[in-house]
């Protein structure tokens, strides 16, 4: 009797010790996480209900959200954002899958060479990348006009970033070059980890390369594809530096995105409540997109 009490007491003590130790180890990260991620997230929801500017702080319920749905610039920015996402996510995924599937079979040193090259624009940093592209797109002495004229694609200099029809596509192109690095790294590692015995068995049975790829490798790299879809979607939704530095959302809002419009309303016009409401909507849209991709990928499996 005495002994069982001892044991249960000891158990309780161990459990308490584990709890205390666990929370002590968690304390630093939890403090930063709660203070600088969770708390602001909550505040974002809260302030979206207020007419919150430099001078005002009045509760207005959902009227920021009502205003959003009637704001043509928000509508335009939403459409631009969706164009960017729809154009870049599939191209980034397919391109990186293609590159990954070629380079993972090369010699190690060649694999890392190509992996580094495609990662370079990411490491170079959005600001440095943006300023050099701005120079290359320059209508008077930009490199691209010179090259395209030389190739006979255009006959006179184009103002690529100042033209409503081309500006958004320029952004999408630059975004593409800075987006494929991480997916390629992930695909190379996923493809190298594909179970080889299955591939060999299929080859012995006379399967073509295409069949081996789609029937055996593709299902095995599905979790990676899913992850890449989600991160590429989030990245495309958040594309900001490019737009702020290249076009400031112009010409005539042709390149304004939700992220840029949030910046403009909240930090240029100091409309914090309105900006927060847009932030909430953006978070919901991203969550929905990710959820849909999860569903599609799951049913595909």
């Amino acid at each position, binding site marked *: 009797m005495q002994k069982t009490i001892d044991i249960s007491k000891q158990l309780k003590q161990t459990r308490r010790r*584990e709890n205390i130790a666990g929370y002590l*180890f*968690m*304390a*630093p*990260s939890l403090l*930063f*996480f709660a*203070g*600088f*991620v*969770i708390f602001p*997230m909550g*505040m*974002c929801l809260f*302030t979206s209900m207020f007419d919150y500017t430099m001078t005002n702080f009045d509760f207005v319920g959902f009227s920021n959200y009502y205003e959003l749905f009637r704001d043509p610039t928000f509508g335009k920015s939403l459409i631009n954002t969706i164009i960017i996402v729809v154009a870049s996510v599939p191209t980034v995924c397919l391109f990186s899958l293609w*590159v990954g599937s*070629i*380079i993972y079979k090369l010699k190690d040193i060649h694999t890392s060479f190509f*992996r*580094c090259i495609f*990662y*370079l*624009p990411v*490491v*170079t*940093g*959005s*600001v*440095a990348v943006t*300023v*050099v592209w*701005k120079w*290359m797109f320059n209508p008077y*002495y930009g*490199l691209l006009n*010179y090259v395209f004229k030389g190739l006979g694609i255009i006959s006179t200099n184009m103002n690529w970033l100042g033209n409503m029809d081309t500006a958004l596509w320029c952004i999408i192109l630059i975004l593409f070059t800075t987006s494929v690095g*991480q997916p390629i790294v*992930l695909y190379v*590692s996923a493809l190298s980890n594909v179970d080889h015995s299955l591939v060999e068995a299929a080859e012995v049975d006379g399967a*073509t390369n295409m069949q081996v790829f789609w029937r055996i490798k593709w299902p095995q790299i599905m*979790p990676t594809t899913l*992850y890449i879809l*989600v991160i590429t979607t*989030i990245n495309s*939704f*958040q594309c*900001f*530096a490019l737009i702020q530095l290249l076009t400031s959302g112009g010409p005539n809002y042709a390149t304004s995105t939700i*992220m840029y419009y*949030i*910046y403009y309303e909240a*930090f240029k016009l100091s409309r*914090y409540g309105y*900006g927060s409401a847009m*932030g909430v909507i*953006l*978070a919901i849209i*991203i969550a929905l997109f*990710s959820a849909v991709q999860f569903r599609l990928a799951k049913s595909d499996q």
Partner: protein
Amino acid sequence: MDHSVQKVTAYKVIAVILLIVLAVLFTFPLYWIITGSFKDARAINSPAPVWFPLQPTDANYIKLFTKPAGLWMFNTVFLCVMAMVLTCIAAAMGGYALAKKHFAGRGILFSIFVCAMALPKQVILIPLLKEMAFLNIHNTLWAVILPTVGWPFGVFLMKQFSENIPNEMLEAARIDGAGEARTFTDIVFPMIKPGVGALAIFTFITAWNDYFLQLIMLNDTQVLTISLGIAKLQSELSTDYGLIMAGAALGSVPIIVIFLMFQKFFTRGITMGAVKG
């Protein structure tokens, strides 16, 4: 059979040639930054591009350091090192606890960390700005460092690495009478060192390039980073591309060198961070 092998080879050859062309295109902006930074105004503004500066000039760099780029670099390095050290300490401890400590609420806590990662970081910038103003650290480098440390990716990554520590080793340490702190510093830390390395380099590079956060938090000329500095050059002297390219080179070449030196660690960090069930 022979035929199919040959077809594969032909495809492979074409594919590799195409890859090399793409590699040149992907490296070109960097080449243009570096060569551009050594060009004089005539070479910069010539309608027919000067492919290589045959008479390189250092005028752009001299001008750049009067802007003052030295201060920008100092701020950037300080910011990145601080963010890196704090993130590694906090994340190594937190990740270990999430992987190995059976405390109440562990499951829920982990789910919250993972969900927060999927949310757009920039959405919280508005309240974050107000919070920093309230804490009286707005316009200091700490306003950028603290939120970087709070981002949950590090904890997530370190949890992945900590799971590989064999429970028997922790058990043995406990039986030998090692306290929690001793166990962490002597047993756990050496085992997750590669993970910490990966996280360190990852945090450093991310912090270096986190333009949006810096843009919102830092306005004073005293606290500008190199990214903000380049952006400022561009908005003030938008046609002096030689100077702007010198800034871009200063902002990107050091970080590229660091990336190339530690790319093994870095790649591992990216891959480990993605492996989830």
